[in-house]
């Protein structure tokens, strides 16, 4: 399968953003990090397509400059 959707695909971006930010309300930074990971895992299961997740991961990897030595 594969082929990540990269055109606009949400009816209301602000609603979605608020749901995510609200999820973190009252959490410590460490708790938030874990919550983000759980959210990604749940959504990955929902997507159910390895190739789509691989494409998204590749985009994020190249979009996020890392200063850490290999």
């Amino acid at each position, binding site marked *: 399968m594969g082929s990540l*959707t*990269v*055109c*606009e*695909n*949400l009816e209301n*971006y*602000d609603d*979605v*953003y*608020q749901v*995510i*930010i609200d999820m*973190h309300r009252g*959490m410590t*930074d460490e708790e*938030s*990090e874990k919550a*983000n990971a759980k959210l990604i895992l749940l959504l990955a299961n929902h997507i159910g397509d390895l190739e789509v997740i691989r494409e998204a991961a590749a*985009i*994020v990897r190249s*979009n*996020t400059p890392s200063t850490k030595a290999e």
Partner: protein
Amino acid sequence: MPYVPPSFKPCVPAAVSSGDVEQTTILVIGAGPIGLATALDLGLRGHKVLVLDRDTQLSDGSRAICYAKRPLEIMDRLGFGEAMVEKGVSWNVGRVFFKDDPDPVYSFDLLPLKDQKFPGMINIQQYYNEEFNIAELEKLDNVEIRWGNEVSSLENSKDGVLVTVGTEMGPYKLKADWLVACDGAHSPTRKMLGMDFEGQTFKDNFLIADVKFKAERPLERHFWFDPPFNPGQSVLLHKQPDDVWRIDFQVGWDIDREEIVKPENVTPRIKAMLGDDVEFEYEWISIYTFNCRQVKQMVKDRVIFAGDSAHLVSPFGARGANTGFQDADNLAWKLDLVLRGQADDALIASYDEERSLAAEINILNSTRSTDFITPKSHVSTVFRDAVLELAKDQPCIRSFVNSGRLSMPVPYPYSSLNTPDGEEWNGGVEPGTNSIDAPVTVGDKSAWFINQIGWEFKLVTFVGEGGLADDERAALKKLVEGTAPFSVLLVGPTEDADFDVLGDPTGLLAERLAAEAATTYLFRPDQYVAARWGALDTSKVAAAMRKALAGE
């Protein structure tokens, strides 16, 4: 500071010495943009209006500088929309920058649909708005503005209000059928009635520097997240008339508010942003924090709240004054019909219903913008920065960027005044939504659709080549005679003996209203759609009129 606002003589009416109780139909408290617009709308409808303001001058700084398309249409109906556009700086494009990247992460066009009379937004100093409004008010004998008149006590009842007004020579008493409180964020009227003003204060400060410099820059709104010249904070830059630029620096919570506004402390910020060699002078410097709050009821017996007295939003999105004008627009026709006895108080209750909803949505939008611009936690900052980093490469992420969702009219899809669609529509303007504009012709002259509707109910019906059928004509004539503030407008190629006709040579009006022959829209006096049908049926129109007047 070069700008000195015009000042007015304090008014001492005869009632101060005579002790008589004065009478007026409508009392407006506050001669700011919303009070003046309310007075002008009701004054043009022929009512006796008295405006009181405790100060003796116009706005002391540029203050509210962004006026959106819908408020401009309202000002145009009132007679000073074109003056605003002529003096103002029109802009449609906004750009968002992140850190030191000179290329924007995101750009937007406020008015993707062209061929409308008004642009997406203009920038103009608040005092021009007030001056233009006052120039129109001065043409009316039935409206009076009294400067230096402050309400000190208020009795509110179901039949009217009685107020005591202080002047420099002493107090007098005044009775009014209705009081419209446009007395701002700290509304003394609201406090006198002991009404709650619930919401939140944001722990942040913003420094406004309005500076005058001659520079060739594009007429666009530019917004920076975390730029090198204001690390960790935001900056907004946009232009006003007379070579004045508004720069808005986010400066954080723990600051010395008195020190930060001193020109010697502002100048280094501006030079860091625009370069050491930029020459400028200050027009206005101000520091503000902001609140998102609203009153529970915008109508209490005979007192009605409009503008900042009823709701406060963060400035991101220019939803303050713009929302206030739409309050005035929504209120004036309703109050007019109630005063004429053509509708009862239920129509005023619909003002509270519709405009409280608008206030809620405005607060939601401006709170979200605030959360994006000034994240409250580490994780919010992480998400914000992730959006900004990713958005440049991934266009689908750009819609998450929120530097202020700029003021758009709020529709009332579930308003009790609407008649819901009875058939399937593919586009057009839904009931409870303000009209779209389009170019039309009146006789052989070019005109705009938005100028053909408003003030009264308008039934706009599209006719084919043959014009109206005889039975339709007879039914329409009967409807016009039987219904008070109502007229008919035909759209089509033919002239008509009984009704005004608009031409739609470009077909854009039909396209935007999703209209074919016989499509019929009922527009309210505030240019919102009350009902629409695929065919003309005057009994349905009459029922929709009753509903739009809160009659059933």
